[in-house]
Every structure is written in C-alpha cells, then in structure tokens.
C-alpha cells in the first residue's frame, strides 16, 4: 500500500491542483516536498495561515484550484478571512494535521486542537475527518469533489491517530 501522504499528492494531481499553500509542518512535510518537486504545482510558504484564504480566492479568480495545508494550531489564524468562502462562494479545500487530541504530550496544543472542528463549522466549512491510512485517499478525493465540483468550503482533519503522536523523544 502507498504511503497516505503520497495518496494525497495523487489526489492533487487528479483534481488539477495548481497552487499549494503551507507553513512548515512535520505532519505534512512529505506531501509539501512532493508538491515542491512537482512541475505542475506552485508551492507557496506563508508567514501565517491567514494568507491562504485570500490566496485561494485569488487563484480561483484566475482560474486555478488550490489547497491550504495547515496544523490545527493554525486554524484560529484563518477564521475571519475564512468568511470569504461564504461571501464569495468559491471552492476551498484545506487539509489539517491535528494536534491536541487524545494522547497529546503538549498541553499548549489542546485549546486550538479541540476547538478546530467547532470554529470551522461556525464559519460554514464542511468538516470531515480521517484516522485510518487506507481511508485517506477516498476521503480527500471526496472532499476535493465537494469543493471543486460542489462549490463548497471543505476541511479534512487528519487525525493525530493517523499521523502519530509526537513524543519529544520520550516514551
């Protein structure tokens, strides 16, 4: 079986994703590197996740599809501008690596991690989650269909159980 991060990259190719936005992230790093090496995808490093929403709107105005990759801790940075997805009604897809779920080592990650689905839903974003590697491809593919065919704003939460719990070298 493929690595699930490679499955996501394949879904990006299948849906003609042309711009990918990210901040540095351990969970997404393999996918980000695949995008950086791709000839068809322009990869943009952001100073804050907030930039990703208007970037996606601008890309869509210009006829290109995009995806925002972020951590749950970055979701809070996007919330006001997330309203653009409702105001402009443009297709929007974000993949979120989760922190602050059951088993998390770092107490500072819990507030935004636990708040992530609630604040996204409050802004009208459709939220779906995946915690098994074998389900990643189908889940992200369906999310991309909802976004780019159905015109929705969609977030896929990549559960901590899927990514692995960061342990800072401790057992």
């Amino acid at each position, binding site marked *: 079986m493929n690595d699930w991060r490679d499955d996501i990259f394949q879904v990006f190719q299948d849906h003609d994703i042309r711009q990918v936005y990210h901040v540095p992230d351990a969970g997404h790093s393999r996918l980000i590197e695949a995008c950086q090496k791709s000839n068809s995808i322009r990869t943009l*490093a*952001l100073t804050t996740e*907030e930039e990703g*929403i*208007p970037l996606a*709107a601008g*890309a869509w*105005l210009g006829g290109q599809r995009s995806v925002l990759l972020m951590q749950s801790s970055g979701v809070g940075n996007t919330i006001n501008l997330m309203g653009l997805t409702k105001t402009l*009604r443009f297709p929007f897809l974000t993949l979120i690596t989760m922190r602050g779920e059951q088993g998390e080592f770092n107490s500072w990650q819990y507030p935004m991690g636990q708040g992530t689905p609630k604040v996204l839903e409050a802004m009208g974003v459709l939220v779906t989650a995946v915690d098994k590697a074998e389900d990643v491809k189908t889940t992200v593919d369906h999310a991309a269909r909802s976004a780019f065919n159905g015109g929705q704003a969609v977030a896929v939460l990549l559960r901590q159980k899927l990514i692995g719990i960061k342990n800072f070298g401790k057992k």
Partner: protein
Amino acid sequence: MSTATIQRRPLVKKILDGADNNLLVVAGLGSANWDITAAGDRPLNMPLWGAMGGTVPMGLGLAIAQPSKRVLVITGDGDMLMSLGSLATVAAQAPDNLAICVLDNEKFGETGNQATHTSPRNNGPTDSGAGADLSLIARGCGIADTGTVRDQADVATLVTDLRTKKGPVFRLVKVTVEKLEFVMPPQDGAHLKDRFRAALLGSP
C-alpha cells in the same frame, strides 16, 4: 499633520486610465474600493468590502494563476499594516506581473480617521502613530523594487511603473486626508467573483 498633497481620487483615475482586459485590479476595503469604483466600475475589478488584510494575498494568488496579465493591488495603509507578512510571501514568489500601490493617508478612514501606525510619533494624545514606513518594510521583506511618491511631478512615472514595470513592484503614495463621496460597486461577493471570472475566463 501630514504634509501630503496628492489627492487619491484623481490619482487612482490616472493609474487606471485606459484599463483593458490585460489589467486585473484588486482593491482593499474602504477608501481604495470607492476610489477604483469612482474611476469606473468594471468586471475585472475585485473591490473588497471586508477581508481586511487579504488584499495583497488575493492579488498574489491571482498573479500566479494569470502570469500573462498585469495584476494591480490598490489598498490603504490600514489594510497593509494588517498583512505585513504577505509582503515577504510576495517577495519569495517574485511574480513579475504584480504591482502593489498603497495609498497612505496615515488614517483609518472608515472608522473616523484615527491614526494608523504610519502617522508620526509624538503627534498629540489622540493622533500619534509609530512613523512606520511601509515602503521600507516592503524593502525589508525582500521586494527589491520599492519607492515612495509624495509629489505630483512623480505621478506619471508612478503610473508607468505600476502598469508596466517588471514586478513585483511596491509603491507607497502619501495622500491627503479627505472626506469623499462613497462611490460603491456591487456588494455581493459571489456576483463580483462570477463577473470577474466570466470576463477573464469566459465562464463563471
């Protein structure tokens, strides 16, 4: 007191004079929105009524998607101050078709002309800022071609730079504080997006 002499409305009209299908414009909320609309509403204008801090990134996403078109971002100092990091993102991508023009009146115009951080320091108890220089900040973020325009005599060059010079181009224009008529484009965001895409791509 600001010593600016350039008035924003006639300036923006000059910047957009003769705009054709090769010029895509994104304007920040408030005064810049009303300014580009006063110059003549057109489908290839994307005037923002909100989304403060989103103007420059929206222009960047558009510039990357449409490399053969000129993309011009026109916004104010308040909006620009809210997304300084996006200037570094622009510098990292270095789109050669993107120009950013910040109309700096040193005020938050829509909320009653309170001082922004570009206002001078020690300017009285209610009107002091930090003397922040957005052109220097843009330069410091890595945009090589930056400049500040204060005199009417430099406007012709400014217009040429914004419309044709290899990007990314960043220009700060010091403009006067004025009470101007609200000239409003359509407000519905989905409509603005759809008419833009229809004009640019042939279908919404």
